[in-house]
């Protein structure tokens, strides 16, 4: 039974996401469309399941939502900072630097989310992964102390992600 469900619903979150996307796409909420969205949410992951073979680690939904809100806030704030830097500092004053972040996260999904977060929050761009996937290379636009950046990222994001993807 579980197998069957697994086969039909390989990625429940994806199904949910698709149903939501469908509803947003319709630009109106109606029962019929939501049902239809769910149907699509089942059919599409089913047909593409071969390309997402492994089931990801369990993800905790509530901390994830919290994390999202945090990120959005950070994006807004940091954007202003970056804009300020760009508009006010001259090129010579800027101190771009590399930041290396040793990763405790193992799951690819988590690492990806972390990297994405780093990029979205201005001032930092996640640039590369080490060849075994144990560190993340981040470029900071203007920072005096790369270690501070590293610690902040580890503390602010990676820690939370570790909680979400236990």
């Amino acid at each position, binding site marked *: 039974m579980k197998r069957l469900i697994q086969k039909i619903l390989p990625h429940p979150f*994806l199904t949910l*996401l*698709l149903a939501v*996307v*469908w509803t947003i*796409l319709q630009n109106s909420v*109606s*029962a*019929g*469309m939501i*049902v*239809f969205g769910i149907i*699509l949410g089942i059919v*599409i*992951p089913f*047909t*593409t399941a*071969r*390309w*997402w*073979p492994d089931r990801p680690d369990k993800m905790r939904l509530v901390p994830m939502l919290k994390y999202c809100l945090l990120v959005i806030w950070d994006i807004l704030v940091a954007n202003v900072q970056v804009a300020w830097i760009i508009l006010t500092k001259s090129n010579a004053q800027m101190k771009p630097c590399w930041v290396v972040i040793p*990763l405790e*996260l*193992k*799951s*690819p*999904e988590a*690492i*990806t989310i972390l*990297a*994405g977060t780093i990029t979205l929050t201005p001032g930092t761009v*996640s640039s*590369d*992964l080490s*060849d*075994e*996937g*144990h560190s993340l290379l981040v470029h900071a636009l203007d920072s005096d102390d790369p270690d501070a950046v590293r610690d902040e990222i580890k503390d602010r994001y990676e820690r939370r992600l570790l909680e979400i993807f236990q």
Partner: protein
Amino acid sequence: MSLFLIVALPFLGALLPGLMNSAGRAACAGVTFMVTLATFVGLLTNLPTVLAGELVTVGIDWMPLLGLNVTLMLDGLGFFFACLILGIGLLIITYARFYLAREDNMGEFFTYLLLFQGAMVGIVLSDNILLLLVFWELTSLSSFLLIGYWKHLPEGRQGARMALTVTGMGGLAMIGGMMILGQIVGSYDLSVILQNRDLIQADPLYLPALILILLGCFTKSAQFPFHFWLPHAMAAPTPVSAYLHSATMVKAGIFLMARMWPVLSGTPEWFVIVTGAGLITMVLGAVIALFKHDLKALLAFSTVSHLGLITMLLGTGTAFGAMAAMFHILNHATFKAALFMSAGIIDHETHTRDIRRLGGLRHLMPITFGIATLAALSMAGIPLLNGFLSKEMMLEEATHTVLFNSPMLVPVLATIGSLFSAAYCFRLIGHTFLGPQRDDYPAKPHDPPVGLWGPPALLATLVVVIGVAPFLAEPFVKLVTASVLGGVVDVPDAHFKIWHGLTTALYMSIIAVGGGLLMLAIFNPALRVWDAAPRPEAKRIFDAIIAASVSLARKFIAPLHDGSFSRYAAIMAVTVLAVGYHAWTTGTVAPATRILQPANFVQIAGWFMLVAATVGMVFLHRDRLLSLILIGIVGLMVSVGFVVFSAPDLAMTQLTVEVVTIILLLLALNFLPNKTPIESSVTRRTIDGVIAVAVGVAAAGLSYHYMLRDTIIPSISEYHLANSYKGGGGTNVVNVILVDFRGFDTFGEIIVLGIAALLIYALTETLLSGPVRARLLNRKPDQPRAGNMHPMMMVVMTRVIMPVVLMVAFYIFWRGHNEPGGGFIAGLVASIAIVMQYMASGFGWTSARVRYPYHGVIGAGVLIAGLTGIGSWFFGKPFLTSDYTYVRIPPFEKFELATAALFDLGVFLAVVGAVMLSLESFSRLARRAHVDDPDHPMDIDPSRDDETTKAEA
């Protein structure tokens, strides 16, 4: 026998020798002989009618609208020539049976011979001048085959080609002449044309027609200056020479002059051209003949000379001349055929035809000697032989002919011609048969079997019989002459007699014979003079002309068609520009009916970016990646432009296509060099630039012109707007047009896409199974590749994005009928989603997990679209007729079900299949053999650490 059968028999019979080839040589020859005999007999059955002076005509329609009909007519002239053709043909067939060597293909030979014979009979029996032309050219073609029969001999091939070229040229000219005649008269029927002498001669086109027709006759009859092909045609086997040059091919021109005599002759133009050409030919041929050492060449030039004689007679335009000509045709046929066959016998027996190596054959080959001597003396104009009679008549006629106001010119030249004629005849006898017997013949000569000497002997008998008793031939010749004259003038009542009294002609004749003997006496010194004298060698001139035209043609064609695409394209651009400009300036420009709409800052900025990217493409195109990026901008800006100008569907299509195109070009660029070197000169670039700018200005101007003017009547699209919802059930009019109003276009379009994909696939297969494969395997990247083929972020994101994009694709498809979107765009979006997966996890991993072969998807798409179209047949509606209805299934809202959506589904599938198959094929090329398919979708995955350690442990 019906005339149809007479003409058709040789053609039908031509099939037999080929079929009988395996039955043996005798059977081949036998069947040919029987066919010819049957034809001959069939012809003779019409003799009584002809003798009664009646026309035998038959006809059926062939191309009545053109006036080309198969109408045949038999009168005295036709009968005479047909008799010659068939009669001599019978002798030739007999002779050839024994002449041809064992390794010669008998069947082939007789097939050609019968074809030729049929064509000749066709000429003389045609009542329709177009039909006559058909047979006329057929003789050229079949004689080409006959002359080139010995394919291994270069002389044979060249002679054949020369004959075909010259006579073919004449034939083509004659087509022109004949068609003018037909147009003047309003009919191509000979019987009608012959009635319209005055009409024709009064027409301004008479002279061109005359010249064109005479060109045909002269080339065929080897008149000066077209005489040169005939000697080279001697490379043919002797039976062919004998046939072609005594009785048939060359006589065709004479026949035609005789045939057209009633309408064409009698004018000064005719007289000057025909008589002049004839005289020159006669003298020239005779002179050259004397100095030829090859027996057949000698005979060939003598033929030329005699044809000139006949032509001259016809040219005089008098009835007596015509009669003399007809008589001489008969006589010439008899003695010349006999002589050719004798020459063939000599060649056959001694293995040489060179007079200088012969001599003294009279004791070794007495029979041949007898025949040849009789025939040659006849040719020389010795009394009691038939040649004398007609030559007398010719000289007689010559004394009455005044050319260029000079009464002496023609007689003197005629005498000179006769003199040389006599001389070469004597030389032929003297140097071949008389003199001491030699012991250095290439082969031991002796008389041949009766099969070879029988036919010429028969002819020699005729020579003597007519020569002694001309009155036997007289009624027949007069009958023939009557039909030549065609009632324009009466047949002269002069009788054929051996003795006319001491006339001027006789004196001339005596001078000729005497002079001929003298000439032979001083032959050796004369030969030295001749050899020393510079003279144009016709063959060399002809070859030079042909070689020059070929090389000229190559100089003209080769550089023009050297595969330079850039020049082709430039020429095309300039042509279109020039033609368009011409059309534009010859018309009148209407005043503008629309006002210019103002442009705002954004549009100007967009324009600026588009232009910057475009100009960038021109100046930076050598960096190929950069030009790809720039074209991305162009595409983006054009799409935004489409959005601005109210075309969201277009914008979406343009964008998606853009992305796919760029992916495709990047895949290709992987193999191509990344830079374009500078190769063209500055001049070249300037010229190209000027052309490009000119065309650009034209395009801009044209478009500006149209945009400021309204259509002549409001566009049909008003109907589409009005009926899109009513008739097509959709509010997105563009989509309704695509899948409904003009669904057929779309059907074609998805087929184009499908074909493109199939083609790409097929070519990939071909490349991968050919030599290219090895090269691909050994290929090195032209720059170091970065590590991490399948980055983790990309892979993970794709897992989420791809399903979403697929859903969006579905959404676009779903909504397409009413909102911007549709099967196309959905298909492209879906393909891009799949491409994302390919880019993320690589070709091997991804394609190993593809469920359906893309071929099948394309096929299914096209079939679904097509079947939707066919479905409407079952409702009695035409292909692609759409219908729609609204359905309500709880819990869903009411939604629309349209057949157009099914059609769109076909479009969707076809697009997905086509795009994917193309991209897949491209990337298959790039796969290097040593790369194994990875087991994992991403290269780096720390979560696999545990597995690795486990595996290591």
